[in-house]
């Protein structure tokens, strides 16, 4: 996936006719911080982990991006993901540069006390390079609202009360309402804007959703509320299909009780991977990266793919979809709802003011729709796929900020 991001970036840069030197200038991170995170385990042993923070491009604003706690975290992965955050923020026009980082620990092997000590130690090591106007971390793989609360507290101990240093905090501790549903609702708005351009509406279409976690379930709810027919869903345990449309409120109730879509009676069980090939209008991968490959791209029947997950389409599959005329709303646009509501959380923290949920939904719609309009207009004008257009918008905005502020 990491090299896929680079591939799509270069594809767009070449389409723009940008030289190798400028490409490298835009790709290179501004700063990489690598620290040792030494903590005492409950057993009394000392454990030393490595922590990273890569800050990619700060021309448009302070750095922003997730912190992941995972044994595979390293500098190269963080670099590609930090760049992805720069492009994503630019496409939906929020005033951030991209960052990414994490610690190479496995939180499942740590006690809550150990996890808290690891988090606090990491903050004390990197506190000089993060801050409300420098770099604002957020949750990512294996990190959550509790960890963000510890980060805020540790940073505040050093620098004074600073809720805006981190987003994705608990709602009771300066978090924002609407953060939970943000990505799923953002995907809904992106679909709506696409369909409107074709003279259609959400109500007239059939949807299949791969992944029924935080993103997939909120998406299903919002599509259903707007009259959309969700004909298939899947999670890690099972896939369900009902050509007449699944009863989404009942399915959500089932999910809440059982923690899986498996066993829901309102649809027929499907082999899990077959979800990608069901007869539907809009297919939404909302779980994993790399699901569309050269081997399966020709079997997809949907006319529109909306990438709620990060990196679901490998470059070979992307080329096949383009050749077949299947439209893709790319991840960098479709799933930007999360970072947009993070932005709202940061703004509320700085304003020391709380917005209502309806306010947040309205503003989220404005930012996603603004991104869609710019990307869709450019794609139509230049006759290029949405993904290429999205990356061109990103390069254009970041490039302008870079040259205007003086290289």
């Amino acid at each position, binding site marked *: 996936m990491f090299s896929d991001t680079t591939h799509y970036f270069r594809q767009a840069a070449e389409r723009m006719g940008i*030289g190798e*030197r*400028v490409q490298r200038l835009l790709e290179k991170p501004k700063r990489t911080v690598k620290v040792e995170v030494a903590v005492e385990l409950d057993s009394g042993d000392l454990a030393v*982990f*490595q922590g990273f923070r890569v800050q990619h491009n700060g021309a448009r604003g302070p750095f922003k991006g997730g912190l992941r706690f995972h*044994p595979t975290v390293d500098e190269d992965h963080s670099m590609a993901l930090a760049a992805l955050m720069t492009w994503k923020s630019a496409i939906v026009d929020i005033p951030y540069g991209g960052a990414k980082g994490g610690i190479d620990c496995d939180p499942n092997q740590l006690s809550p006390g150990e996890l808290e000590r690891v988090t606090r130690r990491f903050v004390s090591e990197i506190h000089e390079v993060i801050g409300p106007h420098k770099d604002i971390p957020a949750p990512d793989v294996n990190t959550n609202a509790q960890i963000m609360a510890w980060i805020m507290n540790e940073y505040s101990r050093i620098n004074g009360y600073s809720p805006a240093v981190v987003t994705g905090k608990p709602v009771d501790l300066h978090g924002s309402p609407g953060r939970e549903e943000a990505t799923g609702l953002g995907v809904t708005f992106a679909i709506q804007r696409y369909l409107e351009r074709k003279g259609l509406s959400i109500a007239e279409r059939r949807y299949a959703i791969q992944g029924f976690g935080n993103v997939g379930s909120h998406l299903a709810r919002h599509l259903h509320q707007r009259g959309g027919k969700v004909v298939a869903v899947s999670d890690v345990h099972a896939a369900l299909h009902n050509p007449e449309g699944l009863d989404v409120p009942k399915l959500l109730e089932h999910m809440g009780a059982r923690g899986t879509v498996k066993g829901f009676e309102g649809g027929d069980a499907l082999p899990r991977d077959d979800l990608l090939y069901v007869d539907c209008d809009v297919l939404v991968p909302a779980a994993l990266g790399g699901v569309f490959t050269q081997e399966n791209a020709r079997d997809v029947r949907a006319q529109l793919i909306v990438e709620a997950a990060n990196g679901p389409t490998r470059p070979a599959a992307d080329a096949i979809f383009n050749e077949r005329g299947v439209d893709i709303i790319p991840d960098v646009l479709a799933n930007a709802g999360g970072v947009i509501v993070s932005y709202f959380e940061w703004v509320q923290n700085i304003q020391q003011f709380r917005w209502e949920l309806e306010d947040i939904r309205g503003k989220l719609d404005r930012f996603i729709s603004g991104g869609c309009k*710019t990307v869709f207009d450019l794609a139509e004008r230049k006759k290029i796929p949405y993904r290429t257009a999205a990356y*061109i918008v990103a390069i254009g905005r970041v490039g*302008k900020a870079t*040259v205007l502020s003086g290289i």
Partner: protein
Amino acid sequence: MSEDDQAPRRTRVTERFTRVPIFAMYLEDDEVARILAISDEISVRGDSEIFGPGEENDGFYIIIKGRVNIDLPSERGGRTTIATLSNRSVFGEMSFLRGDRKRSAWAHATEPTVLTKVRGDAFREMLEKGDVAAYKVIYNFAQLIAARLRRVEDELLDTLDELGPKRRERKLAELQEFRQKLFKEWSF
């Protein structure tokens, strides 16, 4: 010590190694254990030599804890430090992969250091037998070296750009062209 005591211990040891970059991708616990079975743990005092140029190349090292400088002979007969490595870094792998019989650099522990040394002949034997664990380690080496090469290329191009007025001119011209593209052809 009972067997029950040993079992979790081994898992902990294997876990410790899954965070070493050369074991990071695709290696299962039992595969890491197979590599560790052909390895020895070595402790060295601070400010001591691990190996030097001309010594026999008999494997590569993983730093468990501590700090190691890699020094190359400099033109005037001294030493130039090219890298300072710490926990979970690997060294001695370049000459091992090249198949050199002798070491070309110094490895010098600058503080009390614990190392795991993977025996070169035993590792080669695993490769000859087609043991997938050894090939996975080689794949991880390839990833590390590719990333390192990319960084060197970037540094080289930057250095070349800084040298010579022609290259600098070309860079400025490219930036100028980029600026024009942004504000005319690709404005939105």
